[in-house]
Every structure is written in C-alpha cells, then in structure tokens.
C-alpha cells in the first residue's frame, strides 16, 4: 500500500547498477514484509484472549454472570469472555459430544460433574492459592474429580442445591386442611395433599419432578443404601422398593398425576414448576433452584412456602446437588481460564453472585458466614432459610450418591423403568430387574476401552 512505483531510470547503466536495481525491490519488499510482520505480530500480541463459557439458567443467574464477566473484563482488558447462554438440554446432550471431539468451550456450568470429570482441567498449576479452593470447596471438589483422584481442582460450585417440597399454602387454607408439621412422614403429606386437592379440585395433589435425583430424595428417606458391600451399585434394596411402591401406589390412587411420570418415555425430564406457578399443585417436590423463579412469577397470586423434607424410616434427608463451573483441559488458554475462575470464585464476587441469584451457597466460608439476600421477597427469604437448614441434615448416603461418578446412570435407569411401571406398561418387579440390568450394562459400556 505504501510502495511508490517509479519509472525506469534515465540514461545508460552499468552491470553493477543493473544488479543493484534488480536486487533493490526484492530487498525493499523483504524489509517491508519483516516490518509489517513484526507490526502485525505486535498487534496480535496486544489483542485480548477470547474465552468461551457455556451457561444454562434456571432463573436470573445468567444475567448476574454476564454482569460479573463484564466487570472482570473492565479490570482485565487482555481477557474477553463470550458467554454462551444455552438450554439445559444442550449442557446435558451437546456438551459431552463437544468435549469428546475437542470442540468444547473453555468453561461450562454443568450438573453431571462426575460424568464429565475426565474432561476437566486440573487448575492447580495455574492458581495463585489452591489452598483457598480446598478450604472452601473441598467436599464439592470430590464431585468434580475423576475416580481415584483426590487432588485435582477443576472448578467451583455456582450453587449448592437441596431438594425439598414447596407447598401452596393458599390451597391448604381454602380447603381448611391443616398442614402437617415438621418431621411428618411422606404418607402424612400425601394424605393431606390429596384431601386438599379433592376439596379445591386441584389436578396435582403431590408432584415429584420426573427426575431420578428427586426420586432419591424420597428413596434415601425410605432407607435405600444404593451401594453394596463391595462399593459397587446395588440399586434395588428394601429402601428403594419402599420408595418405588409409594410412587406406584400414589399414581394408582390419584395422589400423583400420570402427566409427569407416565406421559413421556425414557429418561426425559418433566418438571411441575409451571403447574405449581398456576396453582394446580398442592405440594411440589423440587428444590432450592426454583426459589428465584417462583418469587418472580408467583408474586402475590397465592402464598407458597418451602417445608422441610418429609421423613421415612431412613430419616428426613434431602438430596444435595448443584451446578459447578468447570474448566476443561481442551482449552488453549489454561492460565487465562484460571484467572477468570479465580475472580469468579473469590469470596466477594461469589457472595454477590449467590445473593443476587438467590442461591444456597456452595462455598463453605460463605455458608458459615451466611449470605444476605436483600432482593429476596419474604417468601423467597423464608424458603432459603428452610433449604439452608435442610442442607445441614443431608445424610452421608445422599452425598455419596451425588458424588458417585456413575450416578447419572443409576438415576436415569430408575426414572426410565419406574416411568414404564407407572404408565402400566410393566410391573414393579420387571422394573426392578431392568434397573439392575441397565445399570450393569451401561457401566460396562462406559468402562470398555
């Protein structure tokens, strides 16, 4: 662009001059190329590193994360983060394929931390203070590590979730039925919910999300142990059968509607959050992640409360869970990824994130100090209090199920086969046999090398 073309030199020229004239343009071009390459490379070096983060949302947490990342970029101009807000289904189904093919984002918010642990980046070499992570995320890091690894630090918890029931208090009041108190059993709640539903013509007396995770909140309280003496899954035990029988009988007696568990096939998830928001559900077993959207969408339409998990022979434990922001080893920029993660996992930033998203903290230090929720409505604040109290009563077996790297295989087999039994396609006995066979077959397939 800057080259000036010249006409031929006038007059006769010597041989040396001819050679010089021939070489000069080549030399000039070479020098200019080197200069421009140096300039270009210099510019390229000054360009920010772009990282990608895949993120799904239940409530407003995507907006909060976008704010925090913007703030991070203002303080760190050399790193840009593209936040890909995707549906939960994409995290569950597309992300594993992206990871296997080496085309994954640098970080992602995931639920199946154990299942994806083989792709996770151990950030220890890039972190300024790995001790901070061990101290504040220690028990949850186990959920993110591959089996046998006791040291890796792949990410942090964006939220700790606790399963538990939401109750439409207005429907109880309209029906004139007293709400069962603390330590009530599942049977007590089922009976009360059915009475209310019959009186107010609500189509869903008791609703459990069609999810293996939610089913295990019931099963653990019925005393299931999940693992045999050898440490391998032994899913169908007496506690499991008690829970399965309850679900089966509730569908038969109309305590549970077949529209959730019986209307779709396989491992498909079905929630009753929309039905609860429309005041069609008396009691809804879901979890703490629903608080934000219930507070926002129900508003003053009716009174709702979160209640402690109902009890059974195995206790009153909820199921823990949650989502972690995990870094992946396919990233080309592990140092930059670690810097972003350090910023987001720092106590003040994380406190703001939990506070604005109305999440139960997955950071031990913050859990101990307590998080303020200034934006929470009175219902949401009360619900957060109930779930935080439930988190303290989670049984070790519930933690073990959640941390097991093949837990999703177990949860999915359960939901698929119990769904068939509920819809009347198979018997419970057949479902038990199939669950055992499915779990064994899928673990064997995963272990094939």
């Amino acid at each position: 662009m800057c080259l000036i073309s010249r006409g031929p030199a006038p007059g006769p020229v010597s041989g040396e001059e001819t050679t010089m004239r021939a070489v000069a343009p080549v030399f000039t071009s070479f020098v200019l190329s080197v200069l421009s390459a140096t300039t270009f490379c210099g510019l390229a070096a000054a360009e920010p590193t772009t990282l990608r983060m895949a993120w799904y949302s239940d409530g407003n947490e995507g907006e909060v994360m976008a704010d925090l990342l913007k703030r991070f970029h203002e303080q760190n101009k050399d790193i840009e983060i593209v936040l890909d807000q995707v549906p939960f289904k994409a995290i569950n189904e597309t992300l594993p394929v992206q990871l296997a093919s080496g085309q994954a984002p640098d970080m992602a918010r995931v639920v199946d931390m154990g299942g994806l642990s083989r792709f996770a980046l151990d950030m220890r070499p890039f972190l300024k203070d790995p001790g901070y992570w061990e101290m504040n995320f220690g028990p949850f890091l186990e959920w993110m590590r591959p089996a046998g690894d006791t040291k890796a630090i792949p990410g942090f918890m964006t939220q700790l979730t606790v399963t538990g029931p939401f109750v439409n208090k207005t429907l109880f009041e309209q029906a004139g039925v007293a709400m069962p108190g603390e330590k009530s059993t599942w049977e007590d709640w089922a009976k009360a919910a059915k009475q209310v539903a019959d009186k107010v013509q609500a189509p869903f007396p008791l609703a459990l999300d069609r999810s293996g995770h939610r089913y295990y909140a019931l099963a653990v309280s019925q005393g299931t142990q999940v693992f045999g003496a050898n440490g391998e899954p032994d899913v169908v035990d007496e506690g499991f059968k008690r829970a399965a029988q309850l679900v089966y009988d509730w569908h038969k007696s109309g305590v549970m509607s077949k529209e959730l568990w019986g209307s779709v096939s396989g491992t498909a998830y079905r929630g009753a959050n929309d039905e609860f928001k429309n005041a069609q559900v008396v009691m809804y077993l879901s979890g703490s992640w629903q608080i934000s959207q219930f507070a926002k969408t129900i508003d003053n339409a009716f009174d709702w409360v979160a209640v402690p998990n109902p009890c059974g022979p195995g206790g009153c434990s909820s199921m823990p869970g949650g989502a972690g922001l995990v870094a992946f080893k396919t990233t080309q920029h592990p140092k930059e990824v670690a810097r972003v993660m350090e910023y987001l996992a720092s106590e003040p930033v994380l406190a703001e994130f939990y506070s604005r998203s109305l999440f139960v903290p997955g950071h031990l230090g913050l859990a101990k100090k307590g998080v303020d929720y200034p934006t929470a409505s009175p219902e949401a604040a009360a619900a957060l209090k109930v779930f935080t109290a439930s988190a303290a009563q989670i049984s070790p077996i519930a933690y073990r199920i959640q941390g097991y790297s093949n837990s999703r295989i177990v949860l999915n087999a359960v939901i698929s086969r119990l769904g068939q039994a509920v819809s009347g396609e198979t018997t419970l006995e057949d479902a038990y046999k199939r669950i055992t066979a499915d779990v064994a077959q899928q673990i064997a397939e995963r272990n094939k090398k």
Partner: protein
Amino acid sequence: MSGISSTTRLERGIATGALARLGQVAVLPVGVALRLLDPPMRWMQRFIGARRMAYVFLLPNFVFFGLFVFLPIGINVVFSLTGGTALFPSQRPYVGGDQFAYLFDCGSYLDPSSCREDHFWRGVANTAKFVVFQVTAMVLFSLITALVLNMKIRGRGFFRAVYFFPVLLSPVVVALIWKWILQRDGLLNAAITTLGGQKILFFVDPGWAMFWAVFVSVWAHMGFYTLILLAGLQAIPADLYEAAEMDATPRWRVLLRITLPLLWPNMIVVIVLALIKGAQTFDEVFVLTGGGPGTATLMVVQYIYETAFSSQVQNFGLAAAASVVLGVVLFVLTLLQFAAARRKEV
C-alpha cells in the same frame, strides 16, 4: 399497431437492444470461463473418448454425494462394529457383531419385554403399528381429498392451497401447535368442558397418544400425497369419462373401473413414499408425546437418538447398529419404490 409512432418503436428497439447488451455483459464472465475450459475439455475428450466424458461431468456431484451420504453411512457401519463411549472410531474397541447380537437377543420378537434391549423392540413394534395406521389413513384421506379437489367445485384453487399449506410447516411447529390444542388445558379440552364433558388427558392414555400421533402426521403430510394423486387424476384421459357418461355408467362404477385402475401407479408411489416416511418418523411424535406414555409412542428413530445422544452413556455403537437395521429396512422399501416406478413407466 398503426397508432404507434416510429419514435416509440425506435425507443423500444433501443431499450431491447440495451437489455440484450446488459445480458451479454452479465454472462460475459461465464462465456470467458467456458472458453477457457474448452481446450482442456477437448483434449480430455480426445484422450478418454466422448462417451466417458459423461462421467467427468458427473464427478463433482458424485464427490459431494460420496462425502455427505456414502462416507457417513460407512462411518456408521464402522461405529456399529465398535463399543465403548469414545467419539473417534480410532479410539473405540472393535466388538464385531456384539451390538447386533445384543439388539437381537430376544425370547420372542413378538414380545418386546422378552428382549434384552426391550426399548428397541418396543420402538420397532410402535413404528410398525404407526406405519400401518398412518399409511392406511394417509392413502385413504389423500385419495378422497384428491378426488374432491379434481371436481369442478367453487374455490378449487383455494382449497388446493389450504390442503397443501401444512406441508410447508416445520414438523416441530406442527407438533407444538397440536400439543397446545391437546394438552390438559388446551383448546380441545376447553371445547369439551364447554359442552359439558370431562377433560381427557390425551397424552396419558396409550391409545389416545398413538391416535393423535397418527392424526397429526396425516394432517401434516396429506397435502403432499394429495398433490401426487391429483396429478395422476388429471392425467387420466377425459374421453374415457365421456364414454362412460354416454353409457350412463354409475359414478361408483366409473370410480372402480376407470379412475382407480388408472390411478394405481400413483397410488403405489404414494404408498411406498408414505411407508418410508412413516418408518423414519421422529420429530413430530417426539415433540408431541415424547414417546410416552411409558414407551407407547417411542419410535425406532427416537430410540436411536436417545441411545446415542441423550442417555448418560452415549452408546454410539448400539445406536449405529440400530440405524443399520433401520437402514436395511428403508433400503428394501426404496427398492420397492423403484420397482413400482419402473412398472408405472412400462
């Protein structure tokens, strides 16, 4: 013509000439490119002969077809012979015919619950049931619609467009529309309760779920098959009907003796195409019923999708084996279509 002045004619001539020149300029690069290609093509023709030049022209298409059709089929077959959860074939252990053996391990093929992979066989049974009902209904309603639209009725063009319109919609959109109509608080239940009836939970009852899966599929695709039959009806010579009319032949006899026999080649095409499409059904039913209740509307393609992508252990090998089985069935149906088409030509 005499009213047009010579100036106007001249202007028109200039305009036409300008357009022609513009066209020449526009196609100039094409002409140049063709002229450039001419010498090597002539050389090649001399070298390989005029008859083989056809293959040279077909080659680009073959390359694309091979790349996007045959190569994926090959990769799929390779996957069906491997196990594990790794994505790349090079990292997957070879298991021979194990995936097929697992799929076909049944006490009785007529009883899916006796099979090790019962979901596959439930999918096969459901797909077979769906195809029988859907193809029968599709052919019948398409035929009736085509016969009506072939009559000289008022607004014929409008009705032809109306029946064809659903074909233009995306299957997902079709399923979502019908889901809104059929769900607990949907339009149909609103109508039923307004008339004093009880709400019906269509997606909880296996019979209703299958009925609506078939109904929605017929509604969505009938226009396409109607069009094929309509074309067939319009190709029947009118003098045959005139002769029948002169003989005072009853209309039902005209239908049975003239229309249906002469429409039969088109009917065969419609039946075979509907069979192939029915066996591949996935998106509409998946969005409408999710394969439920239980597995009452789980189709083979949904089984393949879920086995490969939405189950926790992404079992690409088993899914690939199931798709090879489905592919063989579709191949046989396609051969039937070719045979039918050839018969039509004869």
